[in-house]
């Protein structure tokens, strides 16, 4: 019934099959129907010339805030799914710190349904660990999984109560889903605004020491070790945190972890001048931490690049620093930032980038995709590694513009995003291809 797509002559990079070479890919019935060196187009097939372009398994962002319900002035599920597609992502995992919080099957089902209606990137809901994200008692995890939840988290807040975290790590094993935690010992600096250090001291802002994150990461690792549950640590930003995860993995603890693009390329210096567009949690840290996060991404201590896409309305960020909310948008800059400032700087190679942005996210969260093997889901990202472009926040499909990367000149951009065998987003030619010259 549906049109078939033949992606012709692209450089197909699929670490799940150790594949890096010029191939054709035929997509039919929402799946990868064939992958080969020379595929002739069957009838009713649209041929897409991918010569000179990079073709990868669809990129997956396991950490985004789509704000709906309750924060529709910042983002909606539809606008977030479109922004994801425009950023080269074929799927995103929506965090449950909405208003009301996604802590029951009805709200999880709502997000899943709105995600399907958007017809852009796939939207996988993540449910709360605790009822109302209050950190007190376990939410109905099984029912939420039945309604489409792919993981649980109280993200935005840490799980402070160690018993609750233990119970979550035990209980979630029935469903094979990860328990994702935002590691932060809030008692150490309840009103911290940025990384603790010289910049915070100069600006007169309360600091958040690395230890806030380190203490919580260690506790979570110990509980994962105790329970055998799958711990997923979100947005790791500290050198000790990275090292702790590396050691836990070597002991065989079931832990996966994220690095955010901003923690890979920015330090606390970006906050100087009270730049609220660089205010986030965990905060931008020192250069030694950035170096450690980059090293962790390279050696696999950190499995996944996830944006922590956190849209905020311009009114909210247009405030004195301590009155502004945490977070930046990331969906539409991630590919360009990672290619330009991580891959092209030699921290990881292209295959590792695809591993960290597609294969591992699919594996860790049990999602379809992460591979272009025949018979797998037809989610494909097509990137132009030669495209030069300048980040223009006004052009984002996201409803929000809060980025510290405005004006950055980047090399490498998504040009086509295919979900279930259908193109859901395509770069306007003048946007990318002409800039490339």
């Amino acid at each position, binding site marked *: 019934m549906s049109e078939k797509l033949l992606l012709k002559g692209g450089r197909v990079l699929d670490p799940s099959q150790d594949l890096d070479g010029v191939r054709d890919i035929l997509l039919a019935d929402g799946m990868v129907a064939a992958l080969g060196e020379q595929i002739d187009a069957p009838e009713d097939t649209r041929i897409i010339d991918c010569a000179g372009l990079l073709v990868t398994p669809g990129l997956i962002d396991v950490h985004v805030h789509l704000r709906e319900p309750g924060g529709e002035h910042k983002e909606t599920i539809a606008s977030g799914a479109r922004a994801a597609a425009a950023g080269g992502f074929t799927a995103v995992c929506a965090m449950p710190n909405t208003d009301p919080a996604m802590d029951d099957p009805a709200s999880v089902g709502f997000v899943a349904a709105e995600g399907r209606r958007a017809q852009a990137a796939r939207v996988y809901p993540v449910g709360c660990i605790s009822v109302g994200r209050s950190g007190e008692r376990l939410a109905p995890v099984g029912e939420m999984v039945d309604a489409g939840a792919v993981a649980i988290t109280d993200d935005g807040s840490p799980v402070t109560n160690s018993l609750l975290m233990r119970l979550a790590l035990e209980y979630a094993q029935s469903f094979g889903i990860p328990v994702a935690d935002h590691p932060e010992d809030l008692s150490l600096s309840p009103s911290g605004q940025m990384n603790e250090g010289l910049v*915070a*001291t100069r*600006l*007169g*802002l309360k600091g958040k020491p690395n230890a806030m994150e380190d203490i919580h990461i260690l506790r979570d690792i110990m509980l994962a070790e105790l329970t055998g549950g799958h711990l997923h640590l979100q947005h790791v930003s500290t050198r000790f945190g990275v090292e702790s995860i590396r050691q836990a993995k070597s002991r065989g603890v079931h832990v996966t972890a994220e690095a955010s693009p901003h923690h890979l390329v920015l330090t606390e210096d970006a906050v100087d001048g*009270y730049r609220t567009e660089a205010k986030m949690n965990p905060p931008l840290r020192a250069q030694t931490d950035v170096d450690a996060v980059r090293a962790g991404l390279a050696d696999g201590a950190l499995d996944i690049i996830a944006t922590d896409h956190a849209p905020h309305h311009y009114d909210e960020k247009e*405030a*004195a*620093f301590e*009155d502004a909310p945490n977070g930046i948008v990331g969906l539409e800059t991630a590919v360009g930032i990672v290619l330009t400032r991580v891959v092209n700087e030699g921290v990881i190679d292209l295959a590792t980038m695809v591993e960290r942005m597609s294969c591992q996210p699919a594996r860790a969260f049990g999602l379809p995709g992460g591979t272009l093997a025949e018979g797998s889901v037809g989610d494909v990202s097509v990137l132009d590694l030669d495209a030069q472009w300048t980040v223009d926040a006004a052009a984002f499909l996201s409803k929000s513009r809060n980025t510290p990367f405005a004006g950055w000149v980047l090399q490498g951009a998504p040009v086509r995003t295919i979900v279930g065998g259908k193109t859901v987003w395509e770069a306007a030619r003048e946007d990318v291809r002409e800039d490339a010259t």
Partner: protein
Amino acid sequence: MNPSVSSLGKDLVGLEDLSGDQIISILDTAEPFKEISERRIKKVPVLRGKTIVNLFFEASTRTRVSFEFAEKRLSADTVNIAASGSSVVKGETLVDTARNLEAMRIDMVVMRHGSSGAARFLAERIPSSVINAGDGQHEHPTQALLDLLTIRDHMGRIEGLRVCIVGDVLHSRVARSNIYGLLKLGAEVAVCGPPTLMPPAIQELGVTAFTRIEEAIEWAGVLNVLRLQLERMHGGFVPSLREYNRIWGVSSQRLAAAPRDVLVLHPGPMNRGVEIDSDVADGPHSVILNQVTNGVAIRMAVLYLLAGGRQESAEAAKQGGEA
């Protein structure tokens, strides 16, 4: 006068942004203005026709009154807006407040706000001059300028002096402004207080840190004693006010043990018997009331310079002419 040619730039947000020469020029400009406050008729027409808004989001008596006297003695038209933190939703209101003030065509805003960076935030958004009267735990530049002027009055210089800032440096905007100002004028600077009240990485600013007041007093020629706010005890930073006084209080016994006469400043309001003993505050070392007197002259100098006045014309300006 034309603010676009101000030697200080458009605003006074903090001393971190100023050069040593700019700071000295403010101090030198304040000298002739001191005398105005000693006259029977304490008014000169230097800022006639200028409109100044005193926008205080935090309670203040001393600073607000000092600014108001400075403005009135220079003949500016002033409006006071006191918005208590509880009645104002911070942040968004600040944007709208700024826009509304601007729409009324004002010349200067003197602002105190509880959020660090609020003064810069305002300065970046309105064409009027913004004077920071204290922003969160960031800077309080006019306080530091009046401290510098008072130190210079009594010691004859700033360069080469050893100045120790004592007390709650962590939460103090006065401390930060003093550190920048003193270092730029060539003083040696130290801080002293409980380690719980020392900002992280403070030494990286170029200051020495003492944890014992005895060491600080032995080292210093000038002590600037900060107010210990009562809520620091509730916050657990110090166990009790009595213990604070016993370990870090500036007492006459401790000053008597010093190898030299030590000048004692305090930005006020004082907690007598906590960070400073009464016999010190009222004794021969203290220049605390001189600071208050100098505060008016310093603020007149800042207003005058930001309005486009020249330091070399200040003497003439106070004789009656508009600069």
